[in-house]
Each structure stands twice: as structure tokens, then as C-alpha cells.
């Protein structure tokens, strides 16, 4: 046990810095190379785009720290949006709570199956990925129906309103991140999350309510994915059915880039936020390059991703 963790303290700091260093480097270089990168408009858009992913990734951070994984978030994100748009005809409250409740419930079932039946999180949440997509198709008449949100409704304001040009979702995501950080580090639930992922067997013996903790994180992840969907629907003014495909992989990538161990037991919310920043900056830079052929774009994304993880890994040594 001793040698591998010989440098664990150092690791923790450096690991966090790894992503931060990469982000600072990326931002600095992009600022210099692409004059429009630093424009207020661009930064606002960057932050807004990042905020939806950040909300999803926040829940994923908790799940991954317990040593699990949640593949259903992409589908739940889309489902949440559709439910919000459908619910908006009954007013703000329904539009906001319906997706949280339904997606939270699916997350709860994920947690229940994982915690109580010892099934692998990967497979359980893969099944709910399919299930939520199916449900979405069922309530939209196989995708034929897209529910619109009245442009003047208060709910749209939630997605489109701004403070100094920065959209509300940015502030919501920021507030949730702060809250998430507090829950993770300063509450018993947070400690239980770490303990569950760090050494599940031991956690049981230490009296940690492992099953409840797991149910808690998956419920949270589902709810947050639903919230992200609701915010997106408010922003897009409609319950778009085609979003969220592959979003789970984005969320996992940003969490891991942020220094959270996939094997569980270690991770930070700040790291995830930095991870979101990195991914969005990379995407933005690819756009700034402008002339890049669309097929090269994914090659470049892949290469960037690789550079970031390798860089981080090297920094950690």
C-alpha cells in the first residue's frame, strides 16, 4: 500500500494543478493566437455552453468518486428538456420540477439497482440510457413532436436571461458547483461518498451507509442531468429531441480530466469545472481555426484530449 501512495499528497495538489496548468496554457495561447478568442461575446458564449455540461458533470463527479459511472445522463438530459418544454404549458413550476422529478426518479432507480443488487453501474446506466431514449421517443410520438416553449414565458427567461450579458445558466451552474463542493467536502454525505469509492468493503465495516450513499449520488446525477436539460430547453425555447447523444462521454471526460479518479475515492468539483473549461476552450479554438475540414476537427479534438491527459499524467509524476 505504501509505495504507490508515497506521493499521494503531492499527487493531489499537482493533479489538480495539472488540469489547471493545461487550462491556463490553452487560454493564454488561444488569446495570443486568436484575437477574437478573448472577446467578451466569445467568452460569454463559452461560459454559457460550458454551464450545461458543468451541471451534468457535477453529478457525474459524485458518481465517479463513489467508484461508479453514469451513462444515462445524455439521455436524461434530452428527456429533461422535452419534459420541461411539455410542462411549460402548465407554467414555470411544472416546467422546472417535472424534469427534475422524472429524471431524479430514473436516477434513483439506477442507484437502487446498483446499490441493492450488486449490478455493475456501467450496465445498469447503459440500460437506462436506452430506457430514457425510448421514453423520450414515446412521449414525442417517435420524435415527431417537438414541444415549443412560448417565447414570452418566464421559463424561457431562465435560459435566456442575462446579467452583464452572462446568461442565468452560468450563475446557476456556478452556484451548484459551490454547493456541490460544500456537500462533497463539508458534509457527512460527502465524506460517505469518498469512503464508498475509496474502499467500499471498509466503508461498510466503518458503518458508512454505502447503499444509501450510492442511491443518493445516482439520484443526484439524474436530477442534475434533468436540470441541465430543462435549462437547455429554456435556452433553446423548445424540447429538442436530438440533443444529448454522447454527452455522457463528454461528462466523463471532463470529470476525469479534472483529476477525479475513475476508480473512485478521490476527486474535486473544482477539477471538474476546470475540465469543462478545457473541453470548451478546445472546441472553441478548433472553431477559431475556422478553415479546418470537419473530419479533421474530430482528429484534432482527439489529439487535444490525448495531449491533455498525457500532460496531466506527466505532471503527476
Amino acid at each position, binding site marked *: 500500500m*505504501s509505495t504507490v501512495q508515497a506521493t499521494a499528497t503531492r499527487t493531489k495538489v499537482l493533479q489538480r494543478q495539472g488540469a489547471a496548468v493545461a487550462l491556463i496554457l490553452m487560454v493564454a495561447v488561444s488569446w495570443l493566437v486568436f484575437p477574437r478568442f478573448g472577446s467578451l461575446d466569445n467568452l460569454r458564449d463559452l461560459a454559457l455552453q460550458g454551464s450545461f455540461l458543468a451541471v451534468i458533470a457535477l453529478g457525474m463527479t459524485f458518481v465517479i468518486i463513489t467508484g461508479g459511472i453514469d451513462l444515462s445522463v445524455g439521455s436524461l438530459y434530452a428527456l429533461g428538456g422535452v419534459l420541461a418544454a411539455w410542462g411549460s404549458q402548465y407554467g414555470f413550476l411544472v416546467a422546472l420540477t417535472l424534469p427534475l422529478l422524472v429524471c431524479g426518479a430514473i436516477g434513483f432507480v439506477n442507484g437502487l439497482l446498483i446499490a441493492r443488487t450488486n449490478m455493475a453501474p456501467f450496465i445498469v446506466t447503459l440500460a437506462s440510457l436506452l430506457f430514457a431514449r425510448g421514453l423520450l421517443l414515446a412521449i414525442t410520438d417517435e420524435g415527431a413532436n417537438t414541444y415549443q416553449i412560448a417565447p414570452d414565458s418566464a421559463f424561457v427567461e431562465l435560459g435566456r436571461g442575462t446579467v452583464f450579458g452572462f446568461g442565468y445558466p452560468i450563475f446557476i451552474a456556478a452556484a451548484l458547483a459551490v454547493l456541490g463542493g460544500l456537500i462533497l467536502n463539508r458534509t457527512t454525505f460527502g*465524506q460517505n461518498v469518498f469512503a464508498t469509492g475509496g474502499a467500499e468493503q471498509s466503508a*461498510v465495516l*466503518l458503518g458508512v451507509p454505502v447503499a444509501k450513499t450510492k442511491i443518493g449520488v445516482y439520484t443526484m446525477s439524474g436530477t442534475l442531468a434533468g436540470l441541465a436539460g430543462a435549462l437547455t430547453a429554456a435556452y433553446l425555447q423548445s424540447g429538442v429531441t436530438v440533443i444529448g447523444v454522447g454527452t455522457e462521454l463528454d461528462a466523463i471526460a471532463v470529470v476525469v480530466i479534472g483529476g477525479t479518479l475513475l476508480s473512485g*475515492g478521490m476527486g474535486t468539483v473544482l477539477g471538474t469545472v476546470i475540465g469543462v473549461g478545457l473541453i470548451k476552450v478546445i472546441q472553441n479554438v478548433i472553431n477559431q481555426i475556422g478553415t479546418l475540414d470537419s473530419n479533421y476537427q474530430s482528429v484534432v479534438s482527439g489529439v487535444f484530449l490525448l495531449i491533455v491527459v498525457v500532460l496531466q499524467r506527466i505532471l503527476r509524476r
Partner: protein
Amino acid sequence: MPTEPVIEVAGVTKTFAGVKALDDVDFTLNRGEIHALVGENGAGKSTLIKVLTGIHSPDGGRIARNGRISTIYQEVNLVPLMSVAANLFLGREPRNRLGLIDRTRRDAEAKELLQGYGITADVSSPLGTLAVGEQQMVALARAVEADADVVIMDEPTSSLEPREVETLLDVVRKLHEQGIAIIYVSHRMDELYRICDTVTVLRDGVSVHSGPLKELPRIELVSLMLGRSVNEIQKHGTTAFGEDHHADTLPVLEALDLTSKPRINNIDVSIRPGEVVGLAGLLGSGRTETAKAIIGALPLDHGTVLVAGKPVPHNVKAATRAGISMLAEDRKTEGIIPNLSVRENIVLAALPKLSRFGITSRSKQDRIVDAFIKRLRIKVSSPEQKVAELSGGNQQKVLLARWLCTEPKILLLDEPTRGIDVGAKAEVQALIDELAKEGLAVLLISSELDELLDGADRLIVLRDGEVAGELEGAQLTREHVLNAIAAEVMDDADGNQNSH
């Protein structure tokens, strides 16, 4: 003393996939007593404890608990990635006015608390960075501070140094004075006789004896555990080691100037064929590190390892090929492959030798495995049983077997008898002796001073990652070693340990 039962167990039975771990066991723990629970490896001690604490539900029987139970389980069961303080207070963290965890206070309290157990480590660093013994003390502190009526300790001293053992025994006495009942599991007879009032002996899942301990002669206790008559058990000393070995003159292993900052510094170790060299030192003095450096599992700043005069590249594979094998201290994370069978765990390192063109030979494996199961008396339902299902001591034997079937030239043993019952321990010790006689070079790390003194022909004493002295021949006495380890240890450890 009032004999009011705090735990009462009647007719408990527990079966694991065909193995009867507990068979109609009765057990009573009275308020305020220290109750020894003894038995061979795999006798069912840990299982009984887990049934008591509700981790396992029994197949039959009834359990009555009267009061809060706090447990230190056999393997260190804390969370390595969380900080020491977080582990200590997990589930009962101090809060501030907002109901949030008050980290400053938690760390301060943790620091103060651990000082009482002789641990000065940084409480905000991950628990995993502590040596196993230190972790055991943290677990102890945690269990004791939990404000319980019953404290259960499953082999709490198996990775402790004489000094820590004393600290622990002091703690046990203090708890006893407070009227807290204690169940104490250990394979170390001395400790049992020093602190326990009552004893229950388990054999093959059956409770074969229960009664006051002091009246039971040691030899009879052992005979009860092993299920053999008293005269069948030959009189041993405290260990089963024989005479010194006659070693060749040329060292087969030379490790020179091993340095991996800040853990170990300029350590030289040389062992001749047929020689048993002991590594002594306090917890965290760098003994494990030294062994890992030799086998190539610890990145080095500098240093060379020579086998028979030839330098060995610094990686485990090369070291293994050169004939070095290492029995790791932490069998759970560095030893067993839990999913694999006993057979596969045993042949793992020797697999290439048991294969032709990369195709394994089952018959060869079976022959070797059967031989080792018999020779080490490993308790298994079949060689195909999952190793994770074995008791701790039997897992240790499986690992020993793994190394022995690679036919190494140099064997590094880090706490080889940790958690092994008396019978098996004597066998392992005799085995080490025998191996040395056959010409093996052995590096023996042990927290039990007697084992080192009797077993080793030469002792290297480490302090703070450096060689603090080498002792040989007539110098191999308790006093000398303790002197070399650290001056201040002598007083308390020496005074107490001569009682047997």
C-alpha cells in the same frame, strides 16, 4: 465483577459455499471482561466477529446484543485515499454553526488524539501514506473513541512493533478500567495471557472450550486449538527456529547504496546463501521500503542490486528472473489475486516454468499445488476454491507457496508470520530454517523481536531509513537490538516483555 452478559450467542451456524465456518457456536461476553477468542487459521474467529457485528447474517441461531459495539477488523479497514483525520472521524465529524464539517477542528482534534497513541503523522495526509502499523493504530483510536460498550479487536497487534503493542495493551487496560467489555483475537500467546480474563477456543467452526484463561496452561490451550493431545505437541521455544546456519562466504545478494528519498538512504544489504538476515526497526523505519527497493518495486534515486555478483536491472521482472522473490507485507492489496483460485494463486509466479510454448500444463500445476497444500497445511475445501474465501492465515500460506514454487535463490519475507496461528507459525519458521539450510538466502522482516532474534543469523537495524547498526552472534540479544533501534524504546518494552 457483575456477570451480566452484553453479548450472548446461542447455536449460531454460518456456512459459506459449502464451508461450515461456524457450527452451532455458543458464546457469552460478560460486562467488563476481556475475552480472548483463539483458534487456528480458518477456525472461524473473524466470521464469529462479523456475525456479532451484523456484517454477516447467520444461517441459524440467535444473537443478543446489549450495547454499542465498536470493532477493529482483522485487515485494516479504513479508507486509504481519505485523510487520517477524516478516517478517524468518519460519520461523527465535528460541525460548525452552519452544520458543515469543521475541518480545522477535526484536524486539531485528530492530531491531539493520535498523539496519545504515539502517532505524529500529518493528519491531513491520506491514510494510505502511513505504514500499516500506524494505520492499525488509527483504526484502534477510531474504535476506542467511538464511545462503545463493547470493543472487538481482531488481531490488532499483528502488524505492531513492541512499542505500539505496549501502547495498545495500555489502551485495552484503560478500557477495561472503564468497564468496557473486550473481545480480543490474537495468535500471540504472551499478549493473551497478559491481559485476558476468559478464553473461548474455536476449532473448525466449533466452540471447543470456554472458561477462565489464567487457569489454563499454555500447552493445553495450544492443544485445544490444534485438536491434538498435549504430548503430541513438542515443546518449542517461543519460535520454531533451529540453530544458526552455516553460510557460504560469498554473498549471493548485494544491495549497495539503496537510496529513494526521503524514505531510505544509503542502505547496504548483503546476504550469503544459507544465511537468514533480519531487518529490525521501528514502524516506518524503512524495512518494507528496503525490501521493495531490492526487488525493484520502488523507484530508486541510486543504488545497485547484484545477484551472484551480476547487476540486476531495477524492475521486478528482472529481479524475479534473477532469483529474487518477495512476500509482501500487505497480502490483501499486494499479495492475493482475489478472484483466482488457490491453485492459480500458487502457480502464478511459476507459470512460465510450468508451461511449454506458453501453453500451461494442468497436471504439473496440480502436482505442485497439492504438494504445497499438504506441506504448508493450507486449509481449503479444494484447490479450486477462491483464495478470497480463505482465512487470513491461510492466504498468507498460499502466498508463501507461490514464492516457494518459483524456487528462488533469495527470498525477501516481509512479516511472513503475520496473522498466522501458532501451529502454522512454527511450521513457517521451521520452513524458513529448512530453506536456509538448503542454501537459500533469506531476508526476514518481522515486528516480533523473538522471531528475529531466533530466526536471523545477522540483524541489520534500520532507523529513519538508514542503517543504524549490524548485530551478529553474541550481540543478538533483546537489549542490544532495542538499544540499536532507539534508546527510548528500551525502558517500556524491555520491562514488560520479559514476563514469559
